[in-house]
């Protein structure tokens, strides 16, 4: 049919096949398969303990899978199995083509060095060495995430929670990654700060055509940011589809429970 031909031309950026992870007898993640395309935002939703954070770690190669594999199309167009990458290659991927936004910005930032250095460090890691250019690019990114450039020399420990999270985002995006993993990026923030951050993320993701895998227990976040949703329960994906389809017309009992638990605005 119409688009299937067109769709075959672009290849998935990341493919997960039958991913599983067990801790002894406990299966944290069972038989998860999906494809993620460039520019696509996938939300993984489910309650605490459903396996969504484990899945994120498996997908980003931070945790070795007990079964199955993840392949990724590298910038040179070659698709590689993540398990076959050397440690240096994997770290390079993390510094360049991938981003990882943690719920707690202290995990993704260096809290004692300046904001400018936090952003510039990723550029230096990919070979930038001109101080003026690094500083200009860092200033530019602080502006894009709505941080006053006058604060560029301050360390993030002097920043508010919302500013830290925006700085973490700038640090991740400065190398123009194609894929960003996010683990509850709005988790610890006030509601008003959350709205601003979501709005910022939404426009950056569209502008940069980023592919994103975002773990959240907040269905409103999934609705605002994602194209597709996977609902997890007990380590399994129990329902998947277009975000508005899954949220407006949930089929599985557990998904119906999740959706019905949202308080009306």
């Amino acid at each position, binding site marked *: *049919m119409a*688009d299937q031909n067109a769709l075959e031309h672009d290849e998935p950026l990341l493919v997960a096949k039958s991913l599983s992870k067990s801790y002894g007898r406990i299966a944290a993640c069972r038989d998860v398969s999906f494809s993620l395309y460039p520019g696509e935002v996938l939300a993984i939703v489910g309650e605490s303990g459903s396996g969504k954070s484990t899945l994120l770690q498996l997908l980003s190669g931070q945790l070795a899978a007990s079964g199955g594999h993840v392949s990724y199309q590298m910038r040179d167009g070659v698709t590689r199995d993540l398990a076959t990458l050397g440690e240096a290659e994997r770290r390079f991927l993390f510094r360049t083509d991938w981003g990882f936004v943690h719920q707690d910005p202290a995990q993704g930032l260096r809290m004692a060095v300046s904001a400018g250095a936090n952003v510039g460090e990723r550029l230096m890691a990919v070979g930038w060495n001109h101080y003026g250019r690094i500083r200009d690019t860092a200033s530019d990114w602080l502006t894009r995430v709505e941080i006053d450039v006058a604060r560029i020399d301050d360390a993030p420990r002097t920043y508010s929670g919302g500013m830290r999270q925006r700085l973490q985002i700038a640090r991740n995006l400065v190398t123009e990654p194609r894929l960003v993993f996010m683990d509850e990026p709005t988790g610890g923030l006030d509601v008003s700060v959350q709205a*601003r951050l979501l*709005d910022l993320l939404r426009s950056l993701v569209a502008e940069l055509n980023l592919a994103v895998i975002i773990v959240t227990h907040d269905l409103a976040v999934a609705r605002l940011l994602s*194209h597709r949703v996977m609902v997890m329960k007990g380590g399994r994906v129990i329902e998947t589809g*277009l975000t508005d*389809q899954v949220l*407006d*017309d949930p089929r599985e009992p557990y998904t119906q*429970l999740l959706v019905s638990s949202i308080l009306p605005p």
Partner: protein
Amino acid sequence: MTAMIDITDAKKTFTMHLQGGIELPVVSGVTFHVDPGECVVLSGPSGAGKSSILKMIFGNYRCDSGRIGIRHRGEVIDLATAEPRQVLNVRRATIGYVSQFLRAVPRVATVDVVAEPLIVNGMARADAQARAGELLHRLNIPERLWQLPPATFSGGEQQRVNIARGFISELPILLLDEPTASLDAANRAVVVELIGEKKRQGVAMVAIVHDDEIRHLIADRIVDVTSFAAAA
């Protein structure tokens, strides 16, 4: 002439797992088509399934069975079985949906909310904003409000912003869910005019309107949804 929308025997039932798994049949045997330049109005009492049918055509509700044929970039795609990515493509290039309520994104200025569908399809921001301005002007949204986010507007103003956003794009299919519900006579007349213009451009439309006078003005054909009442 080839239909833009061709629905055959579509069926929708809700299974309410939290209410002991009761089955709520919504519609079944939904069959009709819409040609380019035609406005089909769905009629029937509240609860007959009109909005559900619109949502099925938009890919928002899933079908249990049947076919939702949509002419997308010259070929027919079945939305009932399409992949999420295909549905998104169809929404970007083919089907627009004007819902009853504006789902506003916080902090985004009204003029940008309206211009967004054009920008997404590649129009330069300034041109898209100019077009948005023209539409907002026609729909009597005062210029001093254009730079504000619509979240604080009155219900009628929000609906007009929503209509502007729906009508700005040049998509070949438009779904209208009570586009005139909370509007005054002057603004209702503007919407009727906009629908007339879309027809002349060959846009296929499916609408839900409760107002008899508006229905009379816009409908080329009426499809009675009660004939699709699902057998309980």
